[in-house]
């Protein structure tokens, strides 16, 4: 495949020198300039709506902003303060606490999510298991992903409230004697946030991983089965290495999603991060500063979020992408 593509590019390259004089005669017209045309919209939009705002966010983190009340008008004053905002953010307990909360709640949801999704994806695609009604299961487990996070949070708030259905069921079942105040316990509230994140994303992840597994050449599985490999062996030696790119994609996007965690805890706790700020995430903290127009602090927290996501992503890349051996394996198996 890749060799073919290389052939395709060498033609325009050699034709480039004489394309001015005899472009029509040789079929190798230089198509490469079309590349600019195709990547232009993306970059134009990205620069205007993301890159410029990103740069100005960074700039804000070095400024102090306050409103000066004049006799006739208000004026917003921007004053360069160097790294003062950073000193404030780094010594603020709130910064570290919201970072901790975010990581804890993400892990509580993501670890079960990736395990269950891998398990389900391998079951659904297992040629030997031949599970029935997989379409139905997939349909149902993906459904929570379509549910708007704010509506889902509102629903959980109603379900787990002191006189809500869950407490009612637990009391009737004799599991608890009086209603349990889920939203007064840090562990319970964090657990609910994690549960919701898990429910919303495990179906989506299962489908993505399934698509990846089904993209693997079926003959690899057939020959492995003929050789007498067990389901576990097939999963470890064929499936896992070959779906690694999609797995990387899943981990990275989930991690970025985790750092961005906002909707669920925000609405579940009405923006307070209760009890005692144990469910307040970094973005909830950022949101507070944006609302109070505390742009210096908001900018600094944004920079911190940026740096964190960069570090985490690089770490995941280094851990998951080892020198690629899958290509070699493929060639070997073919030569056999």
């Amino acid at each position, binding site marked *: 495949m890749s060799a073919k593509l290389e052939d395709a590019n060498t033609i325009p390259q050699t034709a480039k020198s004489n394309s001015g004089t005899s472009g029509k005669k040789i079929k190798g017209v230089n*198509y490469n300039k079309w*590349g600019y045309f195709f990547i232009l919209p993306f*970059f134009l939009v990205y620069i205007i709506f993301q890159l410029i705002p990103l740069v100005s*966010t960074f700039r804000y983190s070095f400024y102090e902003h306050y409103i000066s009340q004049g006799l006739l008008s208000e004026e917003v004053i921007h004053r360069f303060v160097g790294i003062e905002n950073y000193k404030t953010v780094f010594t603020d307990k709130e910064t570290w606490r919201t970072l901790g909360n975010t990581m804890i709640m993400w892990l509580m949801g993501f670890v079960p999510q990736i395990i269950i999704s891998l398990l389900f994806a391998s079951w659904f695609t297992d040629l030997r298991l031949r599970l029935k009604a997989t379409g139905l299961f997939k349909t149902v487990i993906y459904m929570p992903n379509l549910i708007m996070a704010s509506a889902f949070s509102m629903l959980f708030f109603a379900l787990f409230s002191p006189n809500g259905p869950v407490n009612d069921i637990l009391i009737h079942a004799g599991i608890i004697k009086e209603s349990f105040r889920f939203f007064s316990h840090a562990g319970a509230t964090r657990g609910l946030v994690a549960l919701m994140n898990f429910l919303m994303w495990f179906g989506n992840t299962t489908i993505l991983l399934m698509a990846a597994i089904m993209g693997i050449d079926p003959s690899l599985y057939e020959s492995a089965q003929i050789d007498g490999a067990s389901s576990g062996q097939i999963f470890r030696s064929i499936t896992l290495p070959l779906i690694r790119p999609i797995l990387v994609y899943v981990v990275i996007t989930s991690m970025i999603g985790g750092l961005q965690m906002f909707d669920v805890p925000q609405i579940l706790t009405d923006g307070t991060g209760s009890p005692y700020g144990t469910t307040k995430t970094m973005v909830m903290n950022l949101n507070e500063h944006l609302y109070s127009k505390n742009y210096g602090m908001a900018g600094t927290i944004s920079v911190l979020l940026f740096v964190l996501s960069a570090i985490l992503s690089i770490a995941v890349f280094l851990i998951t992408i080892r020198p690629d051996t899958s290509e070699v394996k493929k060639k070997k198996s073919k030569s056999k």
Partner: protein
Amino acid sequence: MKRKDDSGAGLTIHRVICYLVLIFFTLLALFPFYVLIVNATRAHADIQKGFSAFFGGSVVSNFKAVLRDDAHPLVRAMLNSFIIAASSSALTVYFSAFTAYGINTYKDFKFRKFANGFILLIMMVPTQVSALGFIDLMAQFGLTNTFWPLIIPSIAAPAVYYFMLSYMESSLPMEIVEAARIDGANEFKTFNTIIIPMLKPALAVQAIFAFVQSWNNYFIPQLIIDSKNNKTLPILIAELRSADFTKFNMGQLYMSIAFAIVPVVIVYLILSKQIVRGVTLGGVKG
């Protein structure tokens, strides 16, 4: 040699375990929605008395209570959300495929390597980190309280680009592009008439993900939109959380949540086969 997996009994036990686990998680995923539907049909007084597994008879009165509540114009908000999500989704899939096609097809232009590396790099940048500059810039453009800041940025979707590029690398034969060139088609036309139809399975799945992402989006819209009539559904639902629950009609509350959830579930149930088939097709091709 591998008795455990090949013998019928071992396989049956394996299967039973699979089904039990699957059924458990299916019920877990369904439970909140079941309670939602039941309680949306029950009157406030009944809900206060305790949980019931059976439907009540107050669908119409709860429905009317939602429509009558002028402080929370839900129908309007649904329409707003739909306009934004549908436009964003279309822009995201079209332009992600567009960009990926440019990188995948033209192997030798000046910024190709840089462009690809750059997009993969920015895939890791959460939108929240530029939110401050974004709302500031939108205010300068006079776009605060409009839908444009929620739609146009969808053109640049690095994660979808990455997915489309992987898909093209694995399952888009260059021979087709070359054949179109021999037929004298221009590259833009080739992309629209030949490549896009070939990408349909991958596009459909990504369109659903993009739609959901925009539909669910709460953080940026709540910073951009502040007039009552332009509010999106998540903003309005979030506002219900601040209501006084000692006075609020719980039947209406559940019905409002159902407004946000049920239409999507219905559309999903109709399209789910296409979604699943789309995923399957995309996989088999690669």
